[in-house]
């Protein structure tokens, strides 16, 4: 398909077709939508640094980074899914399953420890995608079912959760989770790498453009000849893959496949994505925003720990409240933009 034919397009008499200008209010609204999370993150970090002397230390920052790395990788996949107009509730279970499979597979060395979770979790994502894109089932119910299915598989593998597979602490795979480079754990670097690749994929490739189009208007995307079903399948498969990868990394860090992890993680991932400015209805968003959202959640958790007297359950209260506020604001912003 060449694009030169556009140049051969006709040149009729120049009628100016009326084009409407966006108001300043709309531009501010858009700005707030895209960079709100970053601004809040900055404020929280500054306030917390002043308030708690132990917050603004290098050690604490390193801690926040490594604790956020796993959620970040999961949330990256979720970002693509949500921009594409869907939702993936299975990632928490798949994350836990990935950890168990990695620990199980570590007996065959590094390759087994990585390949086994990636293949199985990727396959779960693929099945999600097939059911959603080909059989046209609602994403939330499909992924809710695979949440259950993945958890069942995990229990079946571990003798109903009674058995915990261990990873040899001296193995190369364990190093992948525990080693550090320039003071930051390998998982942090891997998460950053994943975000860099993800950002390029989303913003600078045809696949990324298609994800935006499918989420923005599935009908229009189909009419414009995009392979809608394939895009969706790839997106869900990638989400499963990333969740499994994050689980494997986490297992490497803990040196064991802990079975009770990942419960409710899908909710944190969704919260991070949405707080990061991605529209929950799809069609707009960014991976950089998601990174801010993940860090914001991590910092808030850290602050709650710093206060010390607060129950750690406050974390989910804050996440839930944040989620409501952000989504309500998003709704009003996009409504004010749409009124023409």
């Amino acid at each position, binding site marked *: 398909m060449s694009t030169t034919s556009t140049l051969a397009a006709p040149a009729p008499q120049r009628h100016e077709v009326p084009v409407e200008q966006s108001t300043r209010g709309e531009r501010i609204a858009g700005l707030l939508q895209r960079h709100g999370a970053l601004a809040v993150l900055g404020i929280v970090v500054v306030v917390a640094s002043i308030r708690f002397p132990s917050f603004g230390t290098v050690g604490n920052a390193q801690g926040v980074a490594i604790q956020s790395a796993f959620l970040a990788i999961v949330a990256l996949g979720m970002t693509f899914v949500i921009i594409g107009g869907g939702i993936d509730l299975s990632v928490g279970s798949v994350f836990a399953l990935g950890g168990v499979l990695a620990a199980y597979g570590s007996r065959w060395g590094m390759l087994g420890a990585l390949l086994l979770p990636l293949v199985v979790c990727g396959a779960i994502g693929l099945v999600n995608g097939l059911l959603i894109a080909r059989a046209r089932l609602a994403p939330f119910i499909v992924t809710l079912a695979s949440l*259950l*299915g993945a958890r069942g598989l995990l229990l079946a593998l571990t003798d109903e959760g009674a058995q915990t597979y261990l990873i040899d602490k001296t193995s190369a795979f364990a190093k992948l989770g525990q080693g550090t480079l320039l003071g930051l754990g390998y998982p942090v670097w891997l998460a950053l790498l994943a975000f860099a690749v993800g950002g390029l994929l989303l913003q600078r490739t045809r696949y990324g453009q298609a994800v935006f189009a499918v989420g923005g208007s599935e009908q229009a995307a189909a009419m414009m000849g995009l392979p809608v079903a394939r895009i969706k399948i790839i997106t869900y498969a990638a989400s499963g893959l990333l969740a499994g990868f994050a689980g494997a990394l986490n297992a490497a860090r803990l040196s064991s496949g802990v079975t009770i992890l990942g419960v409710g993680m899908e909710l944190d991932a969704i919260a991070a994505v949405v707080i990061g400015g991605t529209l929950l209805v799809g069609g707009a968003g960014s991976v950089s925003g998601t990174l801010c959202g993940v860090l914001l959640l991590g910092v808030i958790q850290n602050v709650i720990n710093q206060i010390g007297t607060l*129950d750690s359950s406050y974390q989910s*209260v804050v996440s839930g409240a944040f989620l409501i506020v952000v989504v309500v604001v998003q709704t009003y912003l996009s409504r004010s933009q749409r009124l023409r």
Partner: protein
Amino acid sequence: MTDLALPRTARLSAALPQYGVYAAVLVLLAFNAVFTDNFLTGANLRTQLIQVAPVLIVALGMAMVIGTEGVDLSVGSVMALSAAALPLYLGYGMWPAIAMALLTGVVVGAVNGLLVAVVGLQPIVATLALLVGGRGLALVLAEGRLKQIENADLLALGSDDLLGIPVVVVIAGLLSLAVGLLVSRTTYGRQLVAVGGNRAAATLAGLPVRRVLLGTYVLCAVLAALAGVLATARLTASDPSAIGNLMELSAITAVVVGGTPLNGGRIRVLGTVAGALLMQLLRATLISHNLSDSTAQMVQAVIILGAVYLARERRR
């Protein structure tokens, strides 16, 4: 023109989601009667019914929400909130405590309903926020601890019988009847279905769409809160970290397996009852044949997908 002769397969796939669930319940009962020892005994059936009661109560509310073309993911968290609120007020006696527990349901339901009906959020999104925040709040309320229930009245609610039937089961039965009548015989019920079937048409026909939606989410949450109270009474302890986990999934399963379409406009109350029973019997069957919980979970996952898939076939 109106009496179209559908091909046979089409008729079958239309009938399956409608009546399949009753057939499946019967098949499972028959299977167990033959192959499972001590299944059709009073004691076992009693246990099954007691176990299904909270799920059924939540599923009734869920059926109504799904009938409006919505979904409520926060029901499990509401159960936790209600369970957490219960021991805080037991000092004033059982009834005030139950009232406070149900009040948490009213509050959560009102927030859900406002977000959906007034702000205009997608139901999944609105209720997701309370799924996240609700359980956290419950744990904060309970200070993260499990609390033994020592109020005799409340414990009796969980363990006593009425005319030989456990109170919990009686309550679930009466509620099913009430919801059935509410949906089929009242103005609210018919408006509810119309709102789910075609929101724009309902608005133009002058129906109080917002009020209906708000009321439905509140009802659903109150039913979930009640389920939380009953489950707590049966457990003899308030355990907000465990109670109602994945309840949204069980409830949605019961509703969908019972033949209520996810895209709204139709509510099958009897089907929902049968759907809840079916899933309970299935689990009991698997366990009594020494299949593990993990297998039960995977089977449940497959059944949900199958039910949704069949329901999709029915819709042209």
